[in-house]
């Protein structure tokens, strides 16, 4: 194998075609995505994505950590939706343990997950519009994103790598005044969405650049294992929050935006409407958040409160045991899929009855959705590749893990 080229190459299939290399250092590939394009004039004949530049072996690392030590690794996978990854992993381990999470923790998890979706979609909208030449939207989106990141900082002490969820609940009760700040943000956010839409939705330049571009038929989307807004933009109505409710999503009322057009504009409309739905869900979670504890009553799994450790011997012993030896998880396997901003984020966790996971596999939406890019681009113009990449909203950290 050593004689082989470390990176893939593409040979022209005909005399008149040429190979164009795009990325991995290209501003509109949203990370380190490399595309090999075979072009005939301005038309793409073949497209081959080359990924793996950000592969960090997180799945292998997980096998050497205790269950609770995996949580901080999960938000490094997809740096735009850390809470979603935390939640998917925690749900998987809680299912393995048979652990019930208190309602208050579940509702706060839902609220933070919807804020994460808003955060992720804002980054997507800003950069996608920037790629297609609309600079103002980028600045507006990042203004609101800053508000969300400040909320994350208030609750977790970190803006991006939050690691706020724990197996069995949350790390700690949100600080005083946190819910008022969230309410304040959510109350003014619909007006911000109107602002973005007024800049794009009926803007003739935007419409011309996105309508009818990078079409993906519903049967192709299903066959290519696309999920999330990429699938819903092609008219397939699947949303795991509604179809396989987790973390108490069955208690919330929301619509699932679907568009039948299957083009870049359709995926744009689906995500913009999702921003509105997320605001509604987060508002419902905020208004209905029950009183109670934010951690499950499971001393062998959940770390005790600091105060108790100073006064109770048992709490100190449990803390010492969990930190030094971890906790054992009954043997078995679970697949816990949740709806991340990009699509189906599934954690497949296998336990062999010890304190370390035998196998953790992340089914990441970017990795699966990237396969549709070829279908969207081949036969179309090279200028539309950037629009197509933006419209499937990939995060290369999520793709390569």
């Amino acid at each position, binding site marked *: 194998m050593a004689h082989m080229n470390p990176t893939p190459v593409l040979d022209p299939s005909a005399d008149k075609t040429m190979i164009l290399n795009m990325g991995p250092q290209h501003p509109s590939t949203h990370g380190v995505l490399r595309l090999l394009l075979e072009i005939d004039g301005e038309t793409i004949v073949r497209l081959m994505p080359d990924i793996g530049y950000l592969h960090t072996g997180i799945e292998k690392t997980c096998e*050497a950590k205790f269950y609770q030590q995996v949580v901080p690794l999960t938000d490094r996978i997809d740096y735009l939706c850390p809470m979603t990854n935390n939640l998917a992993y925690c749900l998987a381990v809680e299912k393995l343990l048979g652990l019930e999470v208190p309602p208050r923790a579940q509702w706060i998890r839902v609220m933070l997950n919807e804020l994460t979706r808003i955060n992720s979609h804002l980054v997507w909208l800003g950069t996608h519009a920037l790629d297609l030449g609309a600079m103002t939207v980028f600045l507006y989106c990042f203004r609101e994103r800053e508000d969300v990141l400040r909320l994350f900082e208030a609750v977790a002490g970190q803006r991006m790598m939050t690691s706020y969820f724990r197996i069995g609940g949350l790390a700690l009760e949100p600080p005083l005044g946190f819910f008022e700040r969230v309410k304040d943000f959510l109350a003014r956010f619909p007006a911000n969405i109107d602002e973005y839409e007024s800049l794009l939705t009926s803007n003739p330049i935007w419409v011309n650049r996105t309508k009818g571009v990078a079409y993906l038929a519903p049967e192709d989307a*299903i066959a290519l294992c696309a999920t999330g807004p990429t699938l819903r933009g092609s008219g*397939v109505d699947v949303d795991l929050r509604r179809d396989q409710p987790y973390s108490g999503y069955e208690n919330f009322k929301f619509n699932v935006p679907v568009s039948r057009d299957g083009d870049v504009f359709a995926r744009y409309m689906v995500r913009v409407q999702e921003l509105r739905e997320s605001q509604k869900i987060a508002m419902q979670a905020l208004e209905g958040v029950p009183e109670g504890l934010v951690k499950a009553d499971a001393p062998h799994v959940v770390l005790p409160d600091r105060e108790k450790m100073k006064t109770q011997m048992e709490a100190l012993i449990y803390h010492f045991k969990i930190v030094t030896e971890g906790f054992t998880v009954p043997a*078995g396997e679970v697949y816990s899929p949740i709806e991340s901003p990009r699509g189906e984020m599934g954690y497949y966790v296998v336990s062999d009855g010890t304190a370390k996971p035998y196998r953790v596999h992340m*089914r990441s939406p970017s990795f*699966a959705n990237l396969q549709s890019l070829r279908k969207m681009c081949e036969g179309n113009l090279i200028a539309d590749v950037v629009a197509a990449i933006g419209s499937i909203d990939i995060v290369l950290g999520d793709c390569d893990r």
Partner: protein
Amino acid sequence: MALAPAITDLEQLKERPEVAALLAWNAAAVTGAKFDRNELTIWVDRTCLRQACQTLKDDGVLQYSTLADITCVDWYPSEPRFEVVYHLFSIPNKKYVRLKVKVPGSDPAVDSLVPIWPGANSFEREVFDLFGVRFDGHPNLTRIMMPENWEGHPLRKDYPVEGYR
């Protein structure tokens, strides 16, 4: 919430529609089943995998129309060493089912699902890259995460976590 014990007896599970559909198609292909933590797992003989997936996809009621995930578990040093794990999702019924195929370490190969779902392409390349399981009939079975001149398959259990290789 206490854990209910897992049901591992094929006899008790043959009423389940997924198991029943596969048994009706080819009883010899189903080598086991498990219902644990509300998730159904079916073990399929590795020579029949593609037909089994086709059966579940074409079934008029079940309609497992899409593939959610493919991955692998290495049970080194026990044999058969690998278990390739498939998660199928039914869009009309919003249900998951897990299919598993046992693959020996001496000849790690299984049929590719690309003819049924083109989206299996990347997942199978990932399993090939990180576990070294070959997928027969795959159009482009090359490494996807690691560089092409890499030696070894990192997610195998006998691949060291630290130090030099």
